[in-house]
């Protein structure tokens, strides 16, 4: 089990402070999952952390072919596996 914290960012980075607040609080080793309206932040890579983005949310919004190549596209089973791997997860909404 990994002692870094998994962050789930769930709101638009332009309309809300969710991603900004997450980045201010997280450590460089913390992985960050973009989901819901937060997936628009996959159009650029917001920080040096490891970034994941949920495929269904990207697809719905027309982003799948547009996102930064450094961002990992994941499905719900991958998100389950990520939540297994890290002792704590924090949701930002």
């Amino acid at each position, binding site marked *: 089990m990994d002692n870094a914290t998994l962050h789930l960012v769930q709101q638009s980075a332009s309309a809300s402070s969710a991603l900004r607040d997450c980045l201010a609080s997280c450590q460089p080793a913390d992985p960050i999952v973009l989901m819901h309206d937060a997936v628009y932040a996959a159009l650029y890579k917001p920080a040096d952390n490891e970034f994941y983005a949920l495929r269904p949310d990207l697809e719905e919004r027309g982003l799948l072919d*547009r996102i930064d190549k450094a961002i990992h596209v994941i499905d719900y089973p991958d998100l389950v596996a990520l939540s297994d791997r890290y002792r704590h997860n924090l949701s930002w909404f």
Partner: protein
Amino acid sequence: MASLLMICRKAPYGSSYAREAIDIALAASAFEVKVAMLFTDDGVLQLLKGQNTANTGSKNVEAVLSSLPLYEVAPILVNEDALAQRNLSVSDLNMAVELCRAKDVSALCAQYDRVLTI
């Protein structure tokens, strides 16, 4: 004929605002109101090409928006500052639009009888 400018600021799937704004535009158009729409802030994301709701159970906002010209909703304005801030350009959009800047909003409002942000 009365005129209405709708200023659309919300991303398409995170809430039902986008769908509901389209419903308002069509309703107003049915009452012979001259309707224009300005997409700004996260609202420009409603116009992104390639939205695919086949697997999600949501209504496809891109598909519904593309019907606006048929209902004579015009012009469709887009704030190019909002596009640029999101790493997007006109080539990412799914319909012909007129570009404007954030600072044009007040002058645009003056051209319409009523203005609604949504």
